[in-house]
């Protein structure tokens, strides 16, 4: 029987720096360790003693690609602590910030990280420009990314570490010319999105297993900021109960030993959102996709790629509708005096549910904070899935390169973000 160790020091085509250790004994996987290969930067320690309102910009630096999601989660936590209710326009601008983020971030993952595995190339830039389809994909990928980047820049000031969203509102508002240009770019990118969706719909990669899904699901329409946290079994954890959910379910789960958690595995991300809320997608998206949406709910992790492609279309349709109909007006930022409180902010980041919690004193100074990232929640699922995958593969192959490639493909489907997770993934030790 097969006995070997497989070590991957630094995975490629994922966000940040991830490693993996797998030990196989007599054909059985003894352990899988999805590893931190990055050095801690101690953000949840650094926030202690800082003024509450400085946290969104500080914690944005946890992760470049997810930065705008961290900013919005952080702002929400601060606003809950300060008892600030944002205006309807602020909520709309935040929705648009999320649209821009999802369009550019999902496109980065689908074209630059995942598509090379389908085409059998090492890199997206290696696609053959003499092959009409590959040439088209190259153009499409960068066009969609650029449209999302433009939208994020127009609404939030930057697509990385956004400047305009602050606690209590926005400091800058989209202008007519920028809005027109954004609409044109988003509409021009739509045919590219419609070419992307069949690529992941028809992709035959598959890894199916039973797990639970969790996401923040809005009341009436698909979104990433408001709503209740649900697993699709009828319960609805509302905003006022975020703290108890975070402390009683999410924290124990994300710190659990992979094989001894009490609540059963769950995963977060685009697949979870689509599984739980596909009926709330933008009407235009639903109309365009037709029977493609019948593929959800799905327990196949590779369907997460299709879910991301669907979300790109939704974000594009939603953003175009809002930009064409809403009239933006300058508004003052809402300010309130600090009070002793605990604030929890929850958003759906591109990779799943993201929690920020701060305890603040009456002087407005932060005493303590907690950040729980999507990849921290998905870690248990990732490790369990790799163990099953490797045991399945060993039935037909012992080629380590092949096994390694299949593992990387699976991990990429989860779209893990190690810049985020480096600071929060639980640490496991050899022999433990």
């Amino acid at each position, binding site marked *: 029987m097969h006995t070997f160790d497989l070590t991957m020091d630094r995975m490629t085509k994922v966000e940040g*720096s991830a490693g993996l250790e797998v030990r196989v004994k007599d054909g059985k996987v003894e352990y899988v360790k999805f590893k931190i290969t*990055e050095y801690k930067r101690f953000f949840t320690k650094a926030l202690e*003693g800082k003024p509450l309102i400085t946290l969104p910009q500080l914690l944005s630096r946890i992760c470049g*690609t997810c930065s705008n999601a961290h900013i919005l989660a952080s702002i929400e936590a601060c606003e809950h602590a300060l008892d600030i209710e944002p205006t309807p326009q602020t909520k709309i601008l935040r929705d648009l910030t999320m649209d821009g983020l999802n369009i550019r971030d999902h496109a980065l993952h689908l074209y630059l990280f995942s598509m090379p595995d389908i085409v059998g190339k090492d*890199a997206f830039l290696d696609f053959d420009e003499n092959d009409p389809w590959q040439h088209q994909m190259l153009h499409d990928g960068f066009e969609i*990314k*650029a449209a999302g980047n433009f939208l994020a820049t127009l609404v939030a000031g930057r697509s990385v*570490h956004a400047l305009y969203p602050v606690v209590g509102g926005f400091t800058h508002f989209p202008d007519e010319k920028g809005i027109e240009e954004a609409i044109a770019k988003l509409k021009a990118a739509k045919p590219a999105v419609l070419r992307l969706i069949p690529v992941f719909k028809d992709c035959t990669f598959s890894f199916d297993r039973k797990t639970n899904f969790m996401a923040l699901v809005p009341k009436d329409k698909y979104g990433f900021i408001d709503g209740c946290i649900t697993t699709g079994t009828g319960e609805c954890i509302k905003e006022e109960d975020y703290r108890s959910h975070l402390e009683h379910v999410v924290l124990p789960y994300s710190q659990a030993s992979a094989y001894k958690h009490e609540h059963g595995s769950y995963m977060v991300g685009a697949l979870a959102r689509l599984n739980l809320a596909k009926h709330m997608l933008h009407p235009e998206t639903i109309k365009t996709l037709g029977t493609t949406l019948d593929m959800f709910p799905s327990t196949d992790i590779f369907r997460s790629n299709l879910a991301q492609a669907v979300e790109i279309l939704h974000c594009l349709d939603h953003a175009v509708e809002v930009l064409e109909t809403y009239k933006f007006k300058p508004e003052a930022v809402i300010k309130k005096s600090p009070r002793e409180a605990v604030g929890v902010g929850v958003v759906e980041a591109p990779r799943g549910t993201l929690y920020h919690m701060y305890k603040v004193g009456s002087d407005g100074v932060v005493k303590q904070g907690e950040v729980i990232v999507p990849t921290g929640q998905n870690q248990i699922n990732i490790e369990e899935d790799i163990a099953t995958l490797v045991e399945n593969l060993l039935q037909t192959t012992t080629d380590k390169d092949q096994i390694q490639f299949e593992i990387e493909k699976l991990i990429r489907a989860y779209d893990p973000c190690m810049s985020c997770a480096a600071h929060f993934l639980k640490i496991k030790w050899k022999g433990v």
Partner: protein
Amino acid sequence: MDSEKIKIGWFSFSCCEDNTVVFTELMNDHWREWKKIFDFRHARVLKSKNILDELDVAFIEGAIASDEHAEKLREIRGKSKKLVAVGACAVVGMPAGQRNYFSEEQNKEIEFLIARFSALPKVMKVSDVVKVDAEIPGCPMEPDKFLSAVNGLVAELRPSLIQV
């Protein structure tokens, strides 16, 4: 020789990789021209088969947090004609190095982690470890300064490629 593609490496140390994201966003407008003039030899965000042999330009983001980082950075320096520090963590060591400014009490609470990961007592900026030929400041790096530095390097290393 003069018309050979410019060999590029992109390396990330301790940081949030925001410069990598800015770099991939700049690619939206520049990928056609970069595909013609750059040979991306080592860029983990773009490809799996990465080679560290002789580079024309190495871009370094992130601060240096361990001896292992410092060793790797010296190896890259030794193999690169030009080395460019990109973004605040590489250029000034912050915010990745925020623990350098922790209080005594905060330091006590993290010292077991510093020891466990064999991290350096103080996080360093890139120029603390190797000679740096150019710096692109900003958090994230400023796109226009990055582009003008890239254009300057192309003009210096392969003037014939500018017409492409």
